[in-house]
């Protein structure tokens, strides 16, 4: 039997396998170079990038929880100009599609960022981050309301011609409604989910461990919630979905695909097992052979039938 086909297309983003990095968990692809080749990924999504450089939130920024991790990094990044000058040329040479995650404080900022990247051929797609729980201004405010999310995405759509992904927050009560508005506004695909707002209290100091009080929870602990988000959204939306949140094993990735995700992204699990992309690809391959699938597309949403 020939190897099953696991390449996928999200908008115009052509990936040799369905496993992407989740933004903020793989830096700019350079950090893990000596440990696992960038080429193992279907696409690389880089850190949330803003107009101006940002130093992020004061430390401590991380706290571990049972099977999870809360972070309060606060979009620490060198800013769009440095990313364009220093990171993109190097990333562009690797032959792996590059997706830039964009975070703005206002509509104007998102538009500016999209325009800057419209000029850069190395960037095959952008992922609008309207879901970061760790910054005060912008971002998640757009992602929490269907009308403003739709308006913002429509504006960015006018300014960016290549693949436009929009990353949504699960910290809302009407996720399918927001997803629908974003689809209607012209998004090519949805990324689900960003982190869940969460906290830990130090009972000795009697205060939150993170100076910001709360942060975003990721890792295996959030997988059931993420899966539910993908399940609910794919019931009503037609654009492709990139599923993420707590993927730690090949089986986790398969669950997301069966729930309706066209591709998956891995974040926190990279920190623990940098070899995870190859393992997931291998796991999907053998699962497909076992179940008699020839093309990964046949598997998408199979749990619904």
């Amino acid at each position: 039997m020939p190897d099953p086909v696991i390449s996928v297309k999200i908008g115009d983003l052509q990936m040799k396998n369905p496993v992407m990095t989740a933004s903020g968990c793989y830096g700019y692809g350079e950090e893990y170079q000596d440990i696992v080749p960038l080429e193992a990924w279907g696409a690389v999504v880089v850190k949330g990038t803003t107009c101006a450089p940002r130093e992020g939130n004061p430390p401590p920024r991380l706290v571990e929880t049972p099977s999870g991790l809360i972070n309060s990094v606060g979009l620490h990044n060198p800013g769009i100009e440095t990313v364009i000058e220093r990171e993109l040329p190097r990333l562009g040479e690797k032959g792996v599609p590059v997706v830039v995650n964009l975070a703005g404080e206002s509509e104007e900022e998102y538009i500016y960022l999209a325009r800057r990247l419209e000029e850069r051929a190395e960037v095959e797609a952008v992922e609008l981050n309207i879901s970061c729980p760790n910054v005060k201004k912008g971002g998640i405010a757009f992602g929490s309301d269907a009308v403003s999310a739709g308006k913002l995405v429509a504006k960015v759509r006018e300014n960016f011609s290549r693949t436009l992904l929009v990353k949504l927050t699960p910290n809302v009560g009407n996720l399918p409604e927001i997803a629908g508005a974003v689809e209607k506004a012209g998004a090519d695909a949805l990324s689900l989910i960003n982190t869940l707002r969460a906290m830990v209290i130090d009972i000795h100091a009697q205060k939150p461990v993170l100076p910001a009080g709360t942060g975003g929870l990721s890792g295996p602990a959030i997988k059931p919630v993420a899966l539910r988000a993908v399940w609910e959204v794919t019931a009503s939306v037609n654009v492709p979905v990139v599923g993420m949140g707590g993927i730690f094993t090949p089986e986790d990735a398969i669950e997301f695909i069966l729930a309706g995700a066209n591709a998956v992204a891995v974040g926190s699990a990279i920190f623990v097992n940098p070899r995870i992309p190859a393992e997931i690809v291998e796991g999907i391959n053998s699962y497909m052979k076992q179940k008699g699938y020839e093309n990964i597309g046949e598997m998408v949403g199979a749990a619904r039938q």
Partner: protein
Amino acid sequence: MKSIDPTARDCYLLEIEGVELGPVIPGQFVHLRVLPATDPFLRRPFSVHSYDTGNRLLSLLFQERGKATGILKELKPGTAIDVMGPLGNGFTLNGVARALLVGGGIGIAPLYYLGRRLREAGVETRMLAGGATSLDLPAENYKPHPEVQILWSTEDGSRGYRGTVVAMLKEHLLKNPREETADMIYSCGPTAMLSEVVKTASNHRIPVEVSLEAVFACGVGACLGCVHPVNAREGTRYLRVCKEGPVFNGKEVIFDA
């Protein structure tokens, strides 16, 4: 994993064989996956306590603190441990003739490897090591190298100098002329102690390098979770302890942020 032995109260020496690290600079760390499970979730960083390139034998000196170290101390010889490393920037070894190593508590862990390597390079090396009581310190004859002298301190006076290791350092620098003490101080220990060591070194105009701690996720610079404020040319910057560190020029580190 080859062996695990208690060295002091809540402290253990862990030896792992068959670890291919290549060249290791003292002060670099390894990132351990303690169990192939999701809880504890993250890897844990430990400084290289010693590494024998030929035998590919890695030793770590660790203190039980919580979940992961509690599991680590119970591991049975023969258990496989996933080791990533060596990672981070180590101590500067070049251009030093007389070195003073100052370790507080489990902070002595990286200083042993540093002491051995400095001595092997012909550097005159002395180590000041402090703990709460003698029970918190390894055996008196446990040395990085036969020619490295260790001056011990305990807060209750049960071994060596009575007082903190910082107090001992201050006395040591006052009593001995600079030409005989050090042209470089290296330190590792609790943050409050490092802050004092840096102040003391600055008062004596001796360069100082410190190894910092932070909670790590990736350990390779990708997540930006482990930052510490540092004075840079451009002003205060949050630098990654795992990547730009864990060893920093002590005078640039901001301790009271």
